[in-house]
């Protein structure tokens, strides 16, 4: 559906993408996970035809932008990172403008506006100016404006930045519904929770390179540990923390300590140490290893550093 072949993109001396190759299959909900400045937005811009690669090529349905620019653009919908709408115009006026840019006829456009406004739950606000909308409503309309021409691929460049949790959930539901309807979605984010929740396959990107690629299970399996035990930091657990260092990886942040035992270290050994410190089992939480842990493992840095 979308192929990125050996793409390199530089801004002066800065290498934003370094020989990236990626294939997205039809119907996938693909997550592009990485910290700020990793190269996510550049990759999304190249996929949307907004930028041209210095080397390599981006293919949509096997066709490159160089030869099939308009055709490719009609298959792709791009949701920018910001709310890219005319805030002094109404929701419907905005949708009309963006629909007409894709050459939709008036009858079809009218029907599509009804559909996307309904899906975004904004039908009753269609005549209100965008600037009167809440942040969540603006974000939903931002996506709706991209769906008017029925794109086969939806490129979402961090569409939930600055969105409240409730609106974020609404956006997730909407995107999952679209994906179920057959739309291929490529979703860039620096929130691992979003990638874990939404994406069937994830690519971890940093410094312009894809570091890991696969389903969540495949990615997590790359970690040298299978469990993560977290507990609150306090004087009682401080001594335990010191003793755990020889059994695995210990990381403390925000008052929480995360212990990732080495492969082969039995959990009973951990609990023996805890018992020796008179810490009750209820003080511990078992977690499945996360993408955050994988990123840390791959780069030595946290995703939000």
């Amino acid at each position, binding site marked *: 559906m979308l192929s990125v072949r050996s793409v390199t993109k530089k801004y002066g001396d800065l290498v934003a993408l370094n020989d990236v190759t990626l294939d997205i299959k039809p119907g996938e909900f693909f997550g592009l996970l990485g910290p700020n400045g990793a190269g996510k937005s550049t990759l999304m*811009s190249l996929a*949307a*035809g*907004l*930028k041209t690669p210095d080397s390599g090529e981006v293919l949509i349905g096997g066709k490159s932008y160089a030869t099939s*620019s*308009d055709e490719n*653009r*009609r298959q*792709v*919908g*791009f949701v*920018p*990172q*910001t*709310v*890219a*709408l*005319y805030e002094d115009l109404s929701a419907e006026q905005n949708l009309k403008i*963006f629909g007409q*840019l*894709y*050459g939709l006829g008036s009858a079809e456009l009218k029907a599509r506006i009804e559909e996307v406004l309904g899906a975004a739950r904004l039908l009753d606000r269609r005549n209100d100016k965008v600037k009167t909308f809440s942040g969540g409503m603006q974000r939903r309309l931002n996506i709706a*404006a*991209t769906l008017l*021409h029925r794109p086969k691929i939806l490129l979402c460049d961090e569409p939930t930045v600055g969105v409240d949790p409730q609106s974020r959930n609404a956006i997730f539901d909407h995107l999952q519904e679209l994906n179920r309807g057959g739309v291929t979605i490529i979703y860039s984010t620096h929130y691992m929770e979003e990638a874990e929740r939404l994406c069937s396959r994830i690519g971890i990107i940093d410094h312009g390179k894809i570091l890991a690629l696969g389903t969540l299970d495949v990615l997590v399996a790359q970690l040298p540990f299978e469990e993560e035990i977290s507990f609150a930091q306090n004087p009682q657990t401080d001594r335990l923390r010191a003793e755990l260092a020889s059994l695995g990886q210990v990381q403390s942040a925000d008052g929480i300590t995360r212990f990732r035992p080495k492969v082969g270290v039995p959990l009973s050994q951990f609990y023996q140490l805890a018992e020796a410190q008179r810490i009750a089992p209820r003080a511990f939480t078992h977690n499945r290893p996360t993408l955050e842990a994988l990123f840390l493992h791959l780069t030595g840095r946290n995703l939000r550093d």
Partner: protein
Amino acid sequence: MHPSLVLAKKSLLLFFGKRPAVLITFIVPIALIYLFGQVFGLNKKAGDSGPTGISLAVVNQSSDPGAQKIIDALRAEKTFSVITERKGPNGTNVPLTEEDARSAIRNNAYHFALVIPPDLISDTQFGLHLRLLSDPRNEIESQMVNGILQKTLFSSVPNLLMHSLNKRAEQEIGSQKFENFRHKLAGNIAQNFGGDPQGIYDRLSAGDFWHDHFGESTGAAKKSASAGEAANKGAGAAAANTPTEDEPVKNGAGDVLSKLIRFDQEQLVGKDVSNPMAARLVGGYAVMFLLFALNGAASSLFDERRSGILQRILSAPVRPADILWGRFLFGVLVGLIQLMVMFFAGKVIYGLDLAPHIVPLIVLSIAAAAACTAFGMLLAAVSKSQEAANGLSTLLVLAMSAIGGAWFPVSMMPAAIQKVAHFTIVYWAVEGFTNILWAGQTVRQILPNILVLVGIAVGVMFIATASFKRNKMFE
């Protein structure tokens, strides 16, 4: 540190961190002060200020030697650039005729022509006769030309009046009696004030004795060597009443002289315009505000880029050229509407007569709006940010408006600035609008203005498009 000081320091940090803000606050006013100084000639030496080089055609139909003296006096006046000849059919210069001057004024080649008629000095009447043909399209310029013309004529006219008086006296009392009178007068002057009686007689006969002494106080004529010191003193009282540069017509001598000079004025252009000043005022200010408005519209591209709208548009089957031409079209339409609204306001407020000129007004407005829009696009293309575009726009729009004649006639500016004016959109637009509203010119007649503006629009849009491509506005 007190919170007020902390906050003041913060504001200073932010302010000096924004180069466009600093540019607007300091550099733009300094540039404008310098520019207006150039326009008003403020950097010239004392006594050398004021406008220079206003074209004044002079048609000499008189055989009297006094006519040449008038032309010489006008040539000595820095305000005027005196034209007495035109190119003939074989490339040689031929003297201007009245018809040449009338035609040139109607074609806006210049706005004033002084005709020195055959009866400049009549045998039968005391006084002088002159005629002024004019196109007073610029009221300030017309007032200035009239004032300086009077001053120049008054300073050279006394000897001509004496010449006229001699002729009239000879006619009335006979040449023998009048000759005797001159001999007696010369003798009395020499006896009481010193000097050579024959020399004084000769100058009295030529009619330029008095002029030399009037001229002493104005500095317009050279000091008489033959009349002697005493005669100079005697003429001093009369010289005190001679018009000066500061007060050309207020004093008594000016009043008397103005009654002795028959100065017929004929307006060749704009006779039917009810409010002459408004024709230029409305055109000038309309173009200036058009430039401001369209620059703002063009620089809003930065807003669209910042908000991501540009990305959204470009992800559709839309080319950067579509965006630029869409904006250009918008600018032309808004500009046309804005100009029409301003001219309508001119009609309501000043009674401008628009109905007979509506077609040329619309055509020129479209050309002017196109040029102004293209200019705004170029500023947006060469600026790194909206703030920078706005700063540059303030500087250039004010400068172009001042130089191009939106505020006052170009003809009043120094010659060098007048040449620069031809490189501004404002000049071609304002001249075109004035030609339509004041001189009633048709589309065909203002075609040069239209072509220049359209040429500017096309050329500047071409450069703007290339600049947008180079600065990657659409990436």
